[in-house]
């Protein structure tokens, strides 16, 4: 029986780990992972080794050092390069996640209905 308590205790410790050791991904990494390098066919500026991406990273680093807000950074890049520069358009367009989720739910419903047997 004590084993169950041990498991329970371990799970509690695990679940509380993030409270003491929070995630601290830098804003720069977060942003550079979400900006598309416009000349590199589908890579973000975090991944791309190209000069262009490098210049963009420098600008981004400066923006973050200057303490620009996320919204300002967003506006800056979108006005210059258009919406496609943002590889993470979800925050401003929830439907991008909701449509596939909805379709998945329909699929699951149909799928299970076919298999379900009433007792």
């Amino acid at each position, binding site marked *: 029986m004590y084993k169950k308590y041990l*498991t329970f205790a371990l799970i509690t410790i695990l679940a509380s780990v993030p409270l003491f050791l929070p995630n601290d991904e830098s804003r720069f990494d977060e942003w550079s992972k979400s900006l598309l390098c416009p000349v590199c066919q589908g890579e973000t500026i975090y991944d791309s080794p190209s000069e262009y991406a490098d210049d963009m990273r420098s600008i981004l680093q400066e923006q973050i050092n200057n303490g620009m807000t996320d919204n300002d950074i967003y506006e800056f890049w979108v006005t210059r390069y258009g919406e496609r520069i943002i590889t993470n358009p979800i925050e401003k367009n929830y439907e991008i996640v909701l449509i596939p989720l909805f379709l998945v739910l329909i699929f699951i419903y149909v799928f299970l209905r076919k298999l379900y047997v009433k007792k």
Partner: protein
Amino acid sequence: MIYNLGILFSWLSFSVLIYLFFTKSKYRVHLLVRVNLFLQIFLFCLLEIGLFLNDFSVSYIANYSAVSTPPLYKFASLWGSLDGSILLWNLCLSIFMFLYLKYYKIENSNLDIKIFSFITIFFVGYTVFSSSPFAGCIELATIGCNKSTLIPFQNTLMSNLGRGPNPLLQNHPLMAIHPPMLYIGYVGMTLPFVAATSRLFKRDQSDDWIEVAEKTTYVPWLFLTIGITLGAAWSYEVLGWGGYWAWDPVENVSFIPWLLATAFLHSSKIQKSSKTLLNWNYILVGLMFLSTIFGTFVTRSGVLISVHAFSNGNIGTYLLIGLTIFSLLFIFIGSKNIEYFSESKKINNWFGKSGFFVLNNIILFSSALVVFIGTIFPLFYETIYDRQITIGRAYYDIIVGPMLLVLLCLMIFSIKLTVKNINLNSWFTENSNLLNLSLAIAIFLLINLNNNYFLIVTTAASIILILLTIKNMVKRIRITNTNKTYWTGQIAHLGIAVFALGIILNVTQSYSTEKEINSFQEFEFNNSSFFVYDSIEENKPEKTIIKLPISNEITTKYTSLNIFRNSSQQAISSPAVFRSLSNDIYITVKFIDEDSYKLIVRNNYGILIMWIGLFISSISFIPRLKKRV
């Protein structure tokens, strides 16, 4: 010469296939399948000979090979662009048709070979009517060839040096392995499709469709796994993209058939054991095949931009026609079997074997669906709202990530599944020691890391899965009567668990920084110091390499910039990777001037763990090699 022979023999192969499609004689079927295989091998060799002889009167060779291209990359140039890769596609199809004939042919009907040859006719037809790698050059461009002809015996023009392959494709020997592996996997999805459709067409003749479909799916699944793994390794280790997976459209369309095939490999088992999911399995087999054609369409027709995209031309329309024809065939044969499908049994024990397999299928199929939607979403937005959007990592992280995590947790129970509902209480009693040990290991690992719940659950689940699987293997490996596919599954699951651990570490822990530095200076990163030497320039016929040696306390590695001649493309940078089990120090360089550099230094976690996991999954075929005792 090469051009004339190539076009004539393509026609010959096309005619042989037409004859094969119509012939009734069993003897002729066997003969013609072999003749076609021979012709396709001949065509493959012919183009290779052309590449090595630098026969630039052939448009494809002039455009995608050059005099200075090293032999290995000349060899690989055959699949370096669209037309040549269709030739490889045809060769794979012909080999598979031969193997199918040899091992899986229906005894008393030629229907399966008819369907197979029909599909092959379609792809060989592309090289005959639309665009062929053997097309002769009739109008020169500044470098390479501008216009070509498919009609033999024309006066062709010869360019001087050839344009050479895309720099990305001549930077590493993996170019010679990764694409063919993927092609074998991709084209192999034809096998289960043919097996299922032909056997269901007249079911009274053969009722083993699910066995054959399952067996023939495993081979392409394995090659697809290896192909995708090698692609990820190439992108990370050599191209200096930093990433191994970018959710790029071409990567996605190789992942979709993989997900579907994985689903099918599971659901076919439950059809065999309990006669359920009959209709669903048929749908999966169809979608596996159709998704490969759709994937080729999406990425080769130029409708989507991607790192891998090449050449558009008219293949889009051609593939769409094919997609329609094959879909209709699939639906037609499906509708003939409505009665048979309705015999499919319903599920009673939702927490027993069948329930788990159903859940597995729901998750894998949903993931495929989500990846599919993510791939075509930008197209959809552009057509309907005239907005250009990019769907990046975040989309997949949010939706596919959690689904695959649930799958990982389900695998824990796959070790010992019973037909009846699982009894959690006794399961817990049986495994409590290992469970507690795993949780303790997880806590130990997670201290000092950037934490979030996603990381915690993944780490705990994968460690539990790893330990339980290993214990089970040690305990039961000697039991000879256990089904060999069971051990294949267990090894694959073990690999996935290791992989999951690696990928979650990588996604949550990695970070990067930039350093501006001069020659003979030292910098600190992640508690160790790195010394930068002076750069070295190396000239090769096809490229110039600028190397920068960097050493830590133990070893010296080079990060380099490869500048290719005859190419308008950007230079390719290769990383210096200092590897340990838990993390890689990954350095790429940008040269500012003579002796000052900008280094992008990343600390990438979990990469080696990921490779080990994928390697384990790739060797899951070993138990299948063993003959049943």
